């Protein structure tokens, strides 16, 4: 059997194995995305739906100051919640990676993570609402007479968003820090670095890709959050996700909803590209190291996410 034949055969096998999934994702994911792109350039139909002619109306409507206010608020809440989430998740990932009981801690993070998201939001409503757990507690203990307005405001939305998405940040951070060689920290300390210096100058640069991954995996879903602002937020904590859904279900302005969706899709894609290039750069840097060191830094199975996300 000559080489050329083999190549053809292998190629055919690869396509045979992958095409069922490729076709499925094309039909149920890529085509819907393309439809959204097309719809964003069409006109709103009289009874919902879309009509010709092709316009940029939807994009002009987005400049509406009301939408702009919601967009700015969304960016602000998302940035704040993401920053706090990462700040909380970093020490957690580190502690888990250094622990002898990694599986136990992972289980403790994963159980709330897998619990139905509505149940978790409901739990917060039960705690924060005016006749909720906290208010009743404080009343019973005699600290307050009137219920505090703990829910249906911006603070509640931010807190619950952090609660919902912190596992998304902890898991990739844990995976990356677990591959870090803690001996390097000891070495830095031996060479006279203070503890914070060792953490910020040795650990942090080495887990850069993990930090970026967890930023992406918290920022993007929070940016598109819909349920949390709907259920624990007030009228003044609406986010862009709520606007999109209202455009589809209430106003039935599909072109506008499509335009908003397209913007979010583009932002998400850019974020993902940033993540991929930074991981690729890290891998390239590691490749330049002498062979023996590479073994230790790279480890046999990389973060599943980065290895599958790689476009080679």
């Amino acid at each position: 059997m000559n080489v050329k034949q083999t190549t053809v055969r292998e190629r055919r096998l690869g396509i045979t194995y992958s095409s069922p999934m490729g076709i499925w994702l094309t039909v149920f994911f890529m085509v819907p995305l393309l439809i959204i792109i097309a719809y964003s350039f069409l006109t709103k139909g009289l009874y919902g739906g879309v009509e010709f002619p092709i316009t940029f109306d939807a994009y002009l409507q987005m400049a509406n100051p009301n939408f702009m206010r919601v967009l700015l608020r969304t960016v602000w809440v998302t940035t704040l919640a993401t920053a706090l989430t990462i700040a909380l998740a970093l020490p957690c990932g580190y502690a888990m990676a250094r622990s002898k009981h990694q599986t136990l801690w992972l289980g403790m993070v994963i159980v709330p993570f897998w619990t139905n998201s509505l149940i978790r939001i409901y739990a917060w409503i039960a705690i924060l609402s005016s006749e909720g757990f906290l208010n009743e507690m404080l009343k019973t203990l005699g600290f307050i007479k009137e219920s505090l307005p703990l829910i249906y405001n911006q603070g509640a939305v931010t807190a619950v968003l952090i609660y919902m998405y912190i596992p998304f940040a902890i898991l990739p951070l844990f995976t990356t820090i677990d591959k870090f060689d803690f001996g390097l920290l000891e070495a830095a300390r031996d060479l006279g670095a203070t503890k914070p210096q060792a953490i910020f100058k040795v650990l942090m640069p080495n887990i850069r890709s993990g930090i970026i991954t967890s930023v992406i995996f918290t920022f993007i879903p929070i940016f598109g959050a819909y349920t949390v602002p709907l259920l624990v937020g007030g009228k003044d904590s609406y986010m862009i996700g709520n606007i999109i859904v209202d455009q589809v279900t209430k106003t039935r302005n599909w072109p506008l909803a499509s335009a908003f969706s397209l913007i979010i899709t583009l932002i998400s894609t850019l974020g993902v590209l940033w993540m991929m290039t930074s991981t690729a750069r890290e891998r390239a840097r590691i490749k330049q190291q002498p062979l023996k060191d590479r073994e230790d830094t790279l480890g046999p199975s990389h973060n599943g996410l980065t290895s599958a996300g790689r476009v080679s």
Partner: protein
Amino acid sequence: MTTDVEKPPQRNGNHIKHKLIPSKLVSPPSGPQGPYRLPKNQHFRDHRRFGFSNIMLVLVILFLFAPLFVVITYSFNAAKGMRWTGLSLEWYKKLFFDSNELWRAFGNSIMIAFSSALVATMLGSLAAIGIKWYRFKARAYIQIASFLPMVLPEVIIGISMLIFFSAIKVQLGMFTIFAAHTTFNIPFVFLLVSARLDEFDFSIIEAARDLGATERQALFKVVIPSIMPGIVTSMLMSVTMSLEDFVITFFVSGPGSTTLPLYVYSMIRYGVSPVINSLSLVLILGIMILALTLRRFLKTIAASS
């Protein structure tokens, strides 16, 4: 020679250290690495019990569990509200014997979860094998298409599918939910099985082929059995994610296809009943059993979620 296929990077014996087995059980690798040494980082584990990071970890775990504990505790409350009046199993009685609609919704959820997990697992695993070992033109496209659904916000996926189904005039209902769930499950299966294949030694297939196995025999008798744990894990993950999903289901469901999360949503929106509290305990127990079953794979799952 028989193949010019790119092999996955060959590893010498010390890859064993990354598997989830206690260090004591790791037998000395006989590779070119030479003498046996302790798994990396083993010396540095658990050295300071009350450091800053450990305290933060405990606090965050408490933060994660506190709301669940409150809900579970109040599921045993006799009264309806959050004022404690005494122990009672009333809400459990109501959950199990007087919530027909809830259980019908649960039945729908189970049906969709298992069917979509089955299809997603078959498509995703097969594609992971194809992408991992073979080079062909559409490879990059398939990789991107399988990665994007994981990162896009759920609202976008839900709305794009809603618009898609109404554009091609498909009646919303059980089928559309099934299609949507399969779509968002595929990327997770693909990632988990790919991670499993990373640890798989390609030379085993070459050996099987050299010994006369056909390509299909090699696939079904060598590859699939050895990545079975990854396949089962991803299938269970898919079932969980499908049972859990609210946002996407919300958009693609039609009359008569209420799933459990949709039902819970209507309970929260239109009159909270303490039955949610008792339901929470049942669901959390289910998740705990699942996490215990999968405890050996939690690390792989963490790396791909």
